[in-house]
Structures are given as C-alpha cells and as structure tokens.
C-alpha cells in the first residue's frame, strides 16, 4: 500500500460520488425484469379465443412442489372452451407451494401455461394465495391483491415491473414494456 494508491483511491470514490445511484426506488419506480422472468403463471389462449389448456394434468404431474390441481371436463362441441376434446374446468395453483421453477411450462404439450412477470403476490390469507383460472387467464392484469386494491380505489391495476419486450410464448399477455406502451 503506497501513498499513491491511497490518493488514487480517493479519486475513485470521488468519481462514484458524482455517478447516478444504481438503486431502484422500487415501489416508486418499476423494476426492470428480463423477458424470461419466472413470475405468476399465465394461461394463454389461441388467437381465435379458445383456451390452449386441454386439461391433461401433465403440469400437475411435473410439478415438484405439488402446487397444481387440475380438474378436466368434456368440451361442449357446440360451444367449446378449449381447442381439444377436454378443457380444464378447475385449474388452481397454490402460490404458497409454487417454487416458480417453470417445469409446468416445460411439460405442457400445448403451451397453455407460461410463467409471466407478476411477483407482487403477498396477501393476508392462505386461501387468497390459491389462484384459479379467473386469476391467471391472459386478459387478467396484475395479481389478486393488486386487483383487489384497484377495485377498492377505482384506479387501474398498477404493476411494479417493466420488461424490454414480452416473450412470444406469452401470446396476448399485456405487460408494461420499456418503450412506455402497454
């Protein structure tokens, strides 16, 4: 350790004093997530509006945390819900058990379940952390507590993240992108 090094180190810290802090002031500013972030699951639809999920339960079989429960039912040929023979009548994920590993997404033969970007799921009751179809279909924006708050205050759902782009697997999912458009 020389005096020169000591003097140089002062210069280095002074340089950092005038640089922009790297801190993200999170609740005030959104977090920048990567496009392949593993967040709350999204149940996607085909472009014609039919659900991709065919109720095969392969996701539930693949799930290492036993977080997924699927109850299939036969499609009404006149008025089908999904593109296959059957559809998921009940599709529940227990977010307290889920480890967000993405194996369900790997196992899914139709690409119906895809991990999205929502992560602000903290809630007050165990039962509120079981997400059903109505909480995970593509048109749903935000998590249960976020939507509950939006309903109470009458304001639109405000999510705490921003992504550079939405990956193609999340077909039809609306997420705030860095360009500023939703």
């Amino acid at each position, binding site marked *: 350790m020389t005096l020169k090094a000591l003097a140089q180190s002062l210069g280095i*810290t002074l340089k950092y004093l005038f640089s*922009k802090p790297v801190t993200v002031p999170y609740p005030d500013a959104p977090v920048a997530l990567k496009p392949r972030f593993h967040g709350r699951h999204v149940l996607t639809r085909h472009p014609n509006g039919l659900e991709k999920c065919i109720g095969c339960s392969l996701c539930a079989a693949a799930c290492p945390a036993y977080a997924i429960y699927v109850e299939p039912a036969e499609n009404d040929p006149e008025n089908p819900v999904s593109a296959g023979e059957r559809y998921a009548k009940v599709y529940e994920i227990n977010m307290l058990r889920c480890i967000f590993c993405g194996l369900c997404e790997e196992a899914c033969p139709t690409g119906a379940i895809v991990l999205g970007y929502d992560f602000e799921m903290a809630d007050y009751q165990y039962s509120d952390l079981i997400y059903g179809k109505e909480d995970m279909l593509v048109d749903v924006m935000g998590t249960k507590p976020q939507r509950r708050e939006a309903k109470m205050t009458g304001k639109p759902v405000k999510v705490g993240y921003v992504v550079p782009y939405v990956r193609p697997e999340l077909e039809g999912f609306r997420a705030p992108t860095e360009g500023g458009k939703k």
Partner: protein
Amino acid sequence: MNWSYPVDPYWMVALKALLVVVGLLTAFAFMTLIERRLLARFQVRMGPNRVGPFGLLQPLADAIKSIFKEDIVVAQADRFLFVLAPLISVVFALLAFGLIPFGPPGSFFGYQPWVINLDLGILYLFAVSELAVYGIFLSGWASGSKYSLLGSLRSSASLISYELGLGLALLAPVLLVGSLNLNDIVNWQKENGWLFLYAFPAFLVYLIASMAEAARTPFDLPEAEQELVGGYHTEYSSIKWALFQMAEYIHFITASALIPTLFLGGWTMPVLEVPYLWMFLKIAFFLFLFIWIRATWFRLRYDQLLRFGWGFLFPVALLWFLVTALVVALDLPRTYLLYLSALSFLALLGAVLYTPKPARKGGGA
C-alpha cells in the same frame, strides 16, 4: 501581539453558550443524515430518503427511536459510572467549541462572535479533550463486559497516543504566534499569512491526529465491529448510546472547526471577507473531507495505529517543533519556515507520486 478584545456582558455569554449547544446538537442530528446520504452516494446508493423530503426528517425519527427504545443497564455494571460516562463524554465534547472565533469582534449583532475569549485557549482545549477520554474509559470499566473494557482500553490508548502528536504539532504555530489565544492566532494569520504555509508538516500531523481524536475512519478502532462488537459502548443502548454518538459527532465537528482556525486563517480570507461565511465553508470542507476519507480508506490494525502515531506522527511533529523553535530562538527570518514548509510539501508530493516496486517475499503468485 497586542490585539484587544471587547468583553461581553454575562447574559450575552450565557445566551451564546446556549446557542452553541443548541446549534451543535442540531448540527449533530443533521450531520448523521448528511454523512449517511454522502456515504450512500459514494457507494452508488441513495441513502435514507423516505422520511420527509430528501429524508430531512430522518434525524427526528432517529431521535424518537433512540429515546423510546428500552434502556438496559447491565446487571454487572457499576450503575453510577455507567450513567455518568456518556454524560461526561457529551459535556466535555460540547465544552471545546465555545472558544472558536467566527468573525471579527463585534460581528455578532454588535457582540463578539465567540463564547469566551481565553488567553490560555489551546491549553483549555487540550484539558477538555483529554477529559473526554474519561467518558470513554469509564464506560468500558463500568459496563462489566470484556468487549467494552477492551474497546475502551483501545480507545483511550489511541486517544492518548495521538494527543501527543496533536499537542506537539500545535506547538509550532503557538511558538510563531507567541500566544495560546485562538483569536490571537487568527489575527496573526490575517496579518502574516495562513499558518499552514509556515508549518505544513504540523498542519498535516494535526489533520491526521484530529481524525484519530474524533475516532474517524482510518483510526476508528474503538468501533471495529468485526473485532469488538461495538467497542466501549457495547453494553449501551437507547439514549445513552445516542449520547456517545453525539459526543463523537461533536468531536468531529469541533475538529473540523479547529483545523481551519489554527492553520487556515479561521474566518479570514484574503479576498471577499465576509464574517461567518468562510468559517462555515471551511468547516464544511473538512467535514466533507473526513466523510470522503471514511468512504474510501480502510481501518488500521491496532498495532499499526499505535506504531503510526508514535513512530511517524510524533517524530515529525517533534522535528518540526524543533525547527520552528530554532528559527524563533535565533530570531531568523520567518521566510525560512515558508521555504521549509514548501520543501516538505514537495516531499509529500514526491512520496505520493513515487511507486516502489512491490517486494515479493517467497514464492507464489
């Protein structure tokens, strides 16, 4: 050497003393915030900014927290000394500031911009700052804890060691000015040029030693958390702990005010002389410098600390004192000291620019 200073009425002195105490306590509160914000920015963070605009109410929140936290007196503690120690620390820290002049006589609404004007000013400063060691030592002793005792021993050893360098460094300007009065020292600098030009090594030694006196970073051994938990205030909690912090910050502010007073012309400035302004700017500069150093440098090991104090600062201060004494005793022209100061500055510059080849001992990378 015959400046005369008007004397204030007693009520005014009391009022100014109150003002200094209130001012110092407020400054302490906001220095904690400023230091945390600055350290954060040095580390590319943001620092406390949640309480009030820019975190300005953070000191208030901290104060409320400190006061209402549980106040534990350890079972093994010597109760009387345990309570007395932080009070001693704070009181003697507060006492030193009153001597410092902030402007020419009569510039405080027609009164004097200092609390008291002592002819033995520097002696008084030393007496008071030495007594502050008692607070630290008693706190370690009264806590009945090994960590506290070790921390307080370290603290008092380093404070006493560096006090020597500090005292000797100050003797050079005192010899030149021929007075221990802080007002005399400032006035002399106004007439003859700032003292750091005449005593650069002494200035440097004083700067380093006052960092140690205020227990600032390269010398903040009493609080080496990795080794000592909290040092001498390990067993203290709540408001008593806050009092130690207060004492430490007041030492810090006082040191930042004393360095410019003694070596950088105090409230004077060759151009644009405004009372108070330059003094506050100089204080702010040294506060910033100390925080900057805290953000950058590492802490010295205990033996390194003592070796540096006794083996480098003390001899340098002694040498410069002898040189100054020689010049003054033989009544040589004072410009010799200017040249010698410049030479020592060049030597320092050379030492900063010189990079020796790293000496590798043994094998390995």
